[in-house]
């Protein structure tokens, strides 16, 4: 189990080390970002707070979430369903929806 936990962290750490990702595409309005992000809560709970067996999102930073989603998208990080979801968004959209979720009232 230990190795299972540690391995996926490496690419993320690398992504974080690069610093802040470029700002979300200016053409994505906050409401458009909300329209994408609100879908996440059906599985990850209200505002990303999961009451059950799904991972929560509400304590992830925008950079963190962006890095994860991009890794799911490329398949660099294996997943059950997240890869199938992440492929539905451009990188700019991923950044915008991650900003939105991370910015919700804690």
């Amino acid at each position: 189990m230990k190795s299972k936990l540690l391995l996926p962290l490496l690419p993320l750490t690398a992504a974080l080390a690069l610093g802040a990702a470029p700002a979300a595409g200016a053409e994505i309005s906050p409401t458009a970002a909300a329209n994408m992000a609100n879908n996440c809560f059906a599985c990850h709970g209200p505002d990303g707070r999961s009451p059950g067996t799904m991972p929560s999102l509400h304590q992830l930073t925008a950079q963190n979430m962006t890095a994860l989603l991009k890794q799911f998208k490329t398949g660099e990080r294996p997943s059950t369903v997240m890869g199938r979801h992440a492929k539905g968004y451009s990188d700019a959209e991923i950044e915008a929806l991650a900003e939105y979720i991370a910015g919700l009232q804690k």
Partner: protein
Amino acid sequence: MSRINRRDFMRLVGGAGAASALGVLGHVPVARGKSGGQVVVIGGGFGGATCAKYLRKADPGIAVTLVERDPRFITCPFSNLVLGGLRTMDSITHGYDALRTRHGVNVVKDEVTAIDPVGKKVTLKSGKTLKYDRLVVSPGIDFKWGAIKGYDPKAAQVMPHAWKAGPQTVLLRKQLEAMKDGGTFILATPPNPFRCPPGPYERVSMVAHYLKASKPKSKILILDNNDKFSKQGLFQKGWEELYPGMVEWVAGSKGGVVKAVDTKTMIVKGELDDHKGAVVNIIPAQTAGQLAIKAGLTNETGWCPVDPKTFESTIHPGVHVIGDSSIAGELPKSGFAANSEAKICANAIVAMFRGDSVADASYVNTCYSLLAPDYGISVAAVYRVTDKGITSVEGAGGVSPADASRGFRQDEAKYAVGWYQSITADIWA
């Protein structure tokens, strides 16, 4: 390598928590100030309850009244798990207290008898009238009784549909419990489109799970109206692995279409053969909810045409139809889709009240199905609005891999339960 799990997330959070202030600074709230506006929402299910809550979240200046006939809502999702003996009815029942107290929704237990889209008001059974600036209608489905000869509401007391969760679910479960070992459970599927495309096959799986443990000589016969079904390869592979020899599937073109039933002899008449069942589950052909039909919101298909970006009726302006009753392009009729549509609809209504342009819509559907308590599969898609309406994004989505390990199926079973916990909290908590 590993799929990410909850503990991965906790570790990530622990390591990067200090950076969270950036996220807060970057946040631009969607709702600014008060726009006012009166919205009446009809129906407190996956569509209606979500829309009511998200309207209030996006703009607390909007007054939202939710009209719901029942004091509590029993979900169709996970009602198959009740049939399989994995869940109680209580565990799939949700109340409206949080919508009232936490989100400031005026929940009215009543029934809408008429909609006046010109006068912008609805009439309730109690005699009251509610005025609205915008109306959201989310009445779910109703059945086309009579499409199968002999199948009417009375026959459904003998051969349940159990396609609206509640007493019908309990009835079917009791019949399965009373069934003798060696009996045949017959499930007949409806023509497309219908609520929850993978639902009949998850039901078969859950019944098989129960029968395998309690009545292992029993058989399951699926009389299918169609020639293919949702997640077919995954379901059939799973049945072979988990319930070998128990499930027989008859395609529509091979005699699966049901023409008539006889509740006295428990005979189901197909185009080619008659079948006798110990327990018979007929899932009838479906239409939009009666209220939508009565209000003139349906077209010749029996469903409600809507604008793909706002879910505003293309027949009656000012009235939005969400959930199973709507014609939502490639989105299926599912609780997940209704939840997704409701949120887009809510933000569109907020924008319309403010005179803003309506933002681009983005929809998601994910349907988990349980084949056994530790065996789950899924189908997912992301949807956008194109000139062809609501269309799934190419290259994204799809079903669980055919060659996945049992560990993968176990994870998806775990996530199926997590999904239920999350979406019901997203709606009713």
